[in-house]
């Protein structure tokens, strides 16, 4: 039996290296010897037993199975199950350990295998140099490029000048105005970001108008943005200078070209997701994730009634609920929006007509009703929703497009033994662990085309008022994002 053992030190925090290595199917994105790779049978890349099926740049095909994976120990073990190269009984282990007195990473890559008579040295060299050493070099280059300054100003950590959209008092879109802003050098636990795309959400309008108290003027609205890390403060171990990151969380302040904020809820973006798409989907996609997986776990065969199925979150809910095996009914207001809902996977679409919403739902479902209802309309829809529920159905009230939902008689819920949920985005996304779990599943859903992102409208940051008018006037379709003016000039 041949043993090959190689180890090195990578000058990057362990979480950064692990984020790259733990994706069992991601090696075609960083290893120079791997051309293309797919996971067999639609398994997840971190599912024990998953088989990655890949082709080397030299042409050979190999299938390898994941035997164990530990996020606690930063360790995984895999075996070759089929190979054009005669590595027999090949089992390999990848292990990372933190170098605590340098914030670097020790990386060990070892394997044992048998070889045909006479080819021992050739195969051992191939594994050691062609696979392990060249892998070390690729990850070293990749993490180095992540921390390469993207502008000369990065040489030292300092405050950054930029522009932000301010609100001095609650009111209409005209209250939004552009003015210079300073993002200070990051303190302990903080990150300084040069932003490249900013998401516009209905909650921003509520913050501007004062309907929600998340923004106390004077202040800067916005809950969601994407950008490049300019600097990190002490105690930040999961982010690197130069890395592409995003966030969707309070406190407000995202309508800016530069921002310094708590790093805990800021996360790296996967390579396949470009900045604008990420800014268009983070907040809405994270909402959809916890609505279909956490507030209510959609099960195969359930009937889901989704209001505003052509809207930002509603469209994602249709796609995701259908993927999870639900029969999806969309409730909307126009034939144009009905087309969007059908394209997103709605099996049935209900339009306002001679019959009530609940009557139409009962007709479609053979008097069963909806097992779960995602209601973003609020005041005008509540009574209809309760009437459209199946016995022991679940009404998830997550928005109020028609106005404040007000006080309700919970006695009416007894008519079908209903469950009522009123989830708040902040409670599902307020720790790094929760955000990591939600974004992992969200990114996977995007990569696997379970959900798709539709960027309907792009505004310059200085046109924030126009962006709000368009969203409030229901003139938009798909997601609305804003781009810093200097970048907008560069691309258009």
């Amino acid at each position, binding site marked *: 039996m041949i043993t090959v*053992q*190689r*180890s*090195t*030190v990578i000058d990057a925090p362990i979480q950064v290296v692990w984020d790259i290595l733990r994706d069992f199917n991601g090696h075609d994105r960083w290893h120079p010897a791997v051309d293309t790779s797919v996971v067999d049978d639609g398994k997840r890349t971190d599912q024990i037993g998953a088989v990655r099926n890949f082709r080397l740049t030299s042409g050979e095909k190999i299938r390898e199975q994941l035997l164990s994976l530990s996020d606690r120990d930063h360790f995984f073990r895999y075996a070759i199950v089929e190979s054009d190269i005669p590595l027999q009984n090949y089992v390999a282990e990848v292990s990372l*350990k*933190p*170098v*605590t*007195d*340098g914030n*670097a990473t*020790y990386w*060990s890559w070892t394997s044992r295998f048998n070889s045909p008579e006479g080819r021992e040295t050739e195969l051992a060299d191939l594994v050691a140099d062609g696979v392990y*050493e060249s892998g*070390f070099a690729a990850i070293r280059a990749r993490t180095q490029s992540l921390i390469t300054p993207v502008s000369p100003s990065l040489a030292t950590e300092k405050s950054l000048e930029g522009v932000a959209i301010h609100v001095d008092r609650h009111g209409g879109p005209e209250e939004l105005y552009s003015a210079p802003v300073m993002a200070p050098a990051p303190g302990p636990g903080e990150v300084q970001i040069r932003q490249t795309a900013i998401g516009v959400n209905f909650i921003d309008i509520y913050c501007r108008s004062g309907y929600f108290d998340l923004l106390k003027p004077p202040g800067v609205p916005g809950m969601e943005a994407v950008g490049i890390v300019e600097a990190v403060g002490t105690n930040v171990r999961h982010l690197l200078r130069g890395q592409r990151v995003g966030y969707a969380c309070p406190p407000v302040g995202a309508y800016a070209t530069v921002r310094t904020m708590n790093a805990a809820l800021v996360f790296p973006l996967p390579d396949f997701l470009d900045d604008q798409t990420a800014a268009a989907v983070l907040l809405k996609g994270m909402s959809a994730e916890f609505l279909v997986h956490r507030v209510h776990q959609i099960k195969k065969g359930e009937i889901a009634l989704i209001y505003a199925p052509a809207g930002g979150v509603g469209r994602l809910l249709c796609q995701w609920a259908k993927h999870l095996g639900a029969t999806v009914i969309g409730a909307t207001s126009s034939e144009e929006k009905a087309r969007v809902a059908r394209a997103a996977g709605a099996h049935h679409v209900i339009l306002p007509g001679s019959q009530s919403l609940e009557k139409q739902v009962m007709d479609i479902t053979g008097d069963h009703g909806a097992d779960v209802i995602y209601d973003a309309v609020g005041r005008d829809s509540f009574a209809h929703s309760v009437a459209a529920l199946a016995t022991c159905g679940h009404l998830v009230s997550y928005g109020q497009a028609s106005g404040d939902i007000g006080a309700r008689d919970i006695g009416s819920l007894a008519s079908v033994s209903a469950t009522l949920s009123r989830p708040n985005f902040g409670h599902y996304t307020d720790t790094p662990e929760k955000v990591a779990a939600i974004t992992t599943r969200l990114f996977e859903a995007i990569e696997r085309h379970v959900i798709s992102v539709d960027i309907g409208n792009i505004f310059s940051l200085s046109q924030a008022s126009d962006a709000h008018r368009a969203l409030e006037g229901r003139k938009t379709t798909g997601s609305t994002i804003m781009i810093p003016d200097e970048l907008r000039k560069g691309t258009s």
Partner: protein
Amino acid sequence: MPNVYISSVIPVPVERVWSMIRDFNGLPNWTSFVMESRIEEGLPADKIGCVRAFQLQDGGFIREKLLALSDYDYSFSYAILESPMGVENYIATVKLLPITDGGRTFAEWSAEFDCASAREDELVAHIGNNVFQSGLNTLKERVGA
């Protein structure tokens, strides 16, 4: 249960580092805080179960029992029997791993223990900084790194 983990890269081969730290009675050779050390009952220093008794520079007296020693894994573990630190169930491990890239050594020193909850942070910082990191720093100097 509080735990402490300190690790470092020592730019000399693992065999050289191991030959320095393998001697359970050799703390005075590679730390700056141990004045003198002896093995109780005249036992060999690589006999599992032997006890080292040593005097710290600051006057403290500590007794530790060798629980495990592996030349194959470049690793040893020990438990504190007696010390002025106020810890219980204290078990520590020192382990070396080769860094084939450049012929260097990755050294880990870790411990788990129980103590009064109000003293956890203080003890974790003290053991991590003044014992483990200090020990590894001196070790680096002594092996000529």
